[in-house]
């Protein structure tokens, strides 16, 4: 082990030329398991794999190998992307292409391995094969790259995800990693690196789209000798898990990205601000930092270049607003995470009043690639003003879900229809939502919209951090907007009045829309209407006067929904009807006379005594009294109660 480390450092990392010698290449192939003489089984082990039960699959595989005294390798790898295929297992027989199997739960392990080792492969579990040059092809099995889920993607940032053991630094180096970092610190000045990134046109991937090179240069040009680089891995948008997937599938590239970015701004302190609730990913990044340090790629005087860097990991403590730059800095300083007025921007005066650059995970994952291939290479993908790719977490009611990467300029329709393979259960699309809780809705008429910072901004839609949520006709837009508003009300930090009071008031009004008045007093209806009339003006005041992005963007889902689904709002307000039957407060039930046996089960359970009738005769529900609680629906043994 020690020898391999020395070998890799001397022959690969310290190498001046770009190409390694044929002899070294052989060693690297060995590390990459390309010359394996025993079968190797790869199990995906991202958080979404674990939720689907991949740990149990892994244990079953290990048991099978020891029970049958097999000589086989068993490796945990990162996440490939398709969450529907989890637990995802890949088997590589010596000299043959890799075979991928989907949904391998622990029960399926035995039959799967029996099949593979006796050349009797179960087609149902098979997802496809992945070709590598010099390996024998499996006849009649489709290639993974040809599946619609993968063929429409352009995987640059994710090209390592799910291909190697994310705890092994040797494998990352064998795949070409850290070479460019070692070259950067030895041959480039700070300004040169910033220049490369300014020319590449890389823009921040957390939603705002601020040019990364420019941000770095601002920090570099300040006079301070102490600077900080913060990697924002907070990602608290519900439904977005792109950063976490990248981080746990390819932690070393993130570390390399952080290292190059820190070098570019001349900082020797980097902090990863980590989201809570995913101990698995946290553990992985800590291991990765430890191993990188062992290799001398972190610490004092890296590779005798005179440059030193250390990375620390800080866990967040659960406040949505801490994803905002200034609030993030407050929480790192040990205060309540409340945003501050900008300017001064963090790149001038941030953490402890020192210049601080905050980049998100995906931005930093792009960094080593651009440094390695040059800014011109990066500009060749994507659009004029938004070069490169974007990673999305596709979730909601699509047939496929998971983490995907597409070239900028891809249409929303391509992602929805080709990659996500349309809507589950043959339902109609209602909307696609980009940008999480503060994002906007894209209706079915606008599906040809291109993924591009400026094109989306023109339509008033923010790109967001990577949430791509597919919403079908079974979802009530009013209720969804209310859900978002409730979230924002809970997460508003309370510093500025428009956001603190506005979110609360908007939630109150939206709640009054989705239920019937509780009593007959004449005032309540009037109050409700007054509220409805005020909704839009509250939203615009919040947008104009809130201190930070949270308050300014909190009304976005509401405004966007109102613009596109006004008739649904009107139905709720005027007709008191919810077409998706989601709003409990507006539901009314009726009893099917044919099916009702008059057992009185529902009448005795009804909390408001809205069900009348004589025993053994069909009962009926008084619509005005019904509160839509649904208890009668649950207790009826004869399915006689229907939702109206």
């Amino acid at each position: 082990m020690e020898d391999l480390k020395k070998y890799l450092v001397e022959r690969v990392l310290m190498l001046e030329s770009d190409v390694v010698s044929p002899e070294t290449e052989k060693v690297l192939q060995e590390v990459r398991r390309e010359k394996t003489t025993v079968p190797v089984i790869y199990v995906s082990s991202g958080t979404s794999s674990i939720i689907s039960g991949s740990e149990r699959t892994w244990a079953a595989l290990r048991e099978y190998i020891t029970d049958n005294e097999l000589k086989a390798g068993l490796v945990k790898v990162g996440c490939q992307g398709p969450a529907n295929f989890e637990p995802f297992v890949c088997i590589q027989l010596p000299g043959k292409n890799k075979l991928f199997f989907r949904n391998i739960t622990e029960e399926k392990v035995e039959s799967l391995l029996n099949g593979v080792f006796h050349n009797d492969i179960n087609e149902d579990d098979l997802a496809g094969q992945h070709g590598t040059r010099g390996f024998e092809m499996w006849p009649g099995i489709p290639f993974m790259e040809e599946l619609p889920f993968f063929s429409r993607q352009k995987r640059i940032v994710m090209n390592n995800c799910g291909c190697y053991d994310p705890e092994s630094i040797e494998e990352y180096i064998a795949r070409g990693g850290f070479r460019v970092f070692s070259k950067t610190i030895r041959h480039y000045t700070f300004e040169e690196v910033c220049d490369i990134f300014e020319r590449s046109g890389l823009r921040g991937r957390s939603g705002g789209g601020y040019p990364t090179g420019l941000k770095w240069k601002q920090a570099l040009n300040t006079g301070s000798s102490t600077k900080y680089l913060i990697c924002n891995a907070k990602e608290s948008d519900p439904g977005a898990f792109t950063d976490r997937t990248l981080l746990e599938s390819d932690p070393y590239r993130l570390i390399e990205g952080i290292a190059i970015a820190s070098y570019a701004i001349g900082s020797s302190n980097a902090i990863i601000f980590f989201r809570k609730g995913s101990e698995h990913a946290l553990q992985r990044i800590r291991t990765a930092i430890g191993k990188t340090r062992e290799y001398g790629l972190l610490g004092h005087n890296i590779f005798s270049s005179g440059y030193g860097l250390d990375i620390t990991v800080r866990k967040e403590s659960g406040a949505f607003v801490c994803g905002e730059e200034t609030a993030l800095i407050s929480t790192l300083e040990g205060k309540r995470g409340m945003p501050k007025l900008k300017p001064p921007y963090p790149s001038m005066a941030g953490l402890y009043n020192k210049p601080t650059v905050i980049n998100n995970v995906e931005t930093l994952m792009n960094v080593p690639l651009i440094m390695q291939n040059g800014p011109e290479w990066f500009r060749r993908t994507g659009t004029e003003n938004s070069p490169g790719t974007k990673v999305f977490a596709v979730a909601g009611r699509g047939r496929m879900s998971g983490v995907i990467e597409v070239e900028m300029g891809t249409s929303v329709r391509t992602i929805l229809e080709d990659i996500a393979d349309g809507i589950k259960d043959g339902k109609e699309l209602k909307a696609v939502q980009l940008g999480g809780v503060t994002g906007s809705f894209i209706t079915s008429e606008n599906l040809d919209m291109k993924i591009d910072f400026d094109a989306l901004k023109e339509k008033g839609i923010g790109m967001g951090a990577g949430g791509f949520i597919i919403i079908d006709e079974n979802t009530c837009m009013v209720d969804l907007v209310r859900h978002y508003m409730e979230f924002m009300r809970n997460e508003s930090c309370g510093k500025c009045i428009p956001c603190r009071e506005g979110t609360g008031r908007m939630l109150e009004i939206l709640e009054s829309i989705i239920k019937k008045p509780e009593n007959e007093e004449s005032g309540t209806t009037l109050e409700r209407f007054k509220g409805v009339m005020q909704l839009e003006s509250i939203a615009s005041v919040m947008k104009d006067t809130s201190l930070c992005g949270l308050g300014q963007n909190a009304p976005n889902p509401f405004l966007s929904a109102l613009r596109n689904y006004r008739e649904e709002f009107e139905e709720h307000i005027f007709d008191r009807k919810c077409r998706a039957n989601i709003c409990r407060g507006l539901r009314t039930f009726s009893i099917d006379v044919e099916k009702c046996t008059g057992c009185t089960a529902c009448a005795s359970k009804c909390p408001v005594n809205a069900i009348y009738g004589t025993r053994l005769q069909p009962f009926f529900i008084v619509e005005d009294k019904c509160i839509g609680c649904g208890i009668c629906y649950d207790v009826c043994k004869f399915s006689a109660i229907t939702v109206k």
Partner: protein
Amino acid sequence: MGQNYDAIFKKYKPGRREDLIPLLQDIQDTEGFLSEETIVKAGTFIGLSTTKIYGLATFYDQFRFIPAGKVHIRICNGTSCYINGSQAVIAKIGEITGLAPGQTGRDGIFSFEIETCMGGCNNGPVIRVNDEYHTHIRTDHLPEFIKKLRFIVEND
């Protein structure tokens, strides 16, 4: 209990405000919650008044001031789980256990809380019982499931 504290405090230098949150996180990780005693102790260690520390700890969702139950249920309420019906799951669990989110039952068996997103979006609704994930939760299975959990705890 006392020794536990000392080991945690030893990791930090006194008087550094930026260490406050990691310190509280560490205490919560070992103790399960922040007791009055620990907050006072942290206050003397960092050099801040207890009210300030309460102010900070109540700002963040992570910190709890009462111990969690033996069975701690976390329910995902992210957008994807919401679309797939997490609201009904939350209501049902509340109904069965008789608790509101963030509470712990008097018998100390159950406690539950709502989380924003766990990232198992294709498997929604997702719940996490202690450290184990359960996916595709259906409300009609919940009474049986909770009963089973209670049985396990009571007979342990």
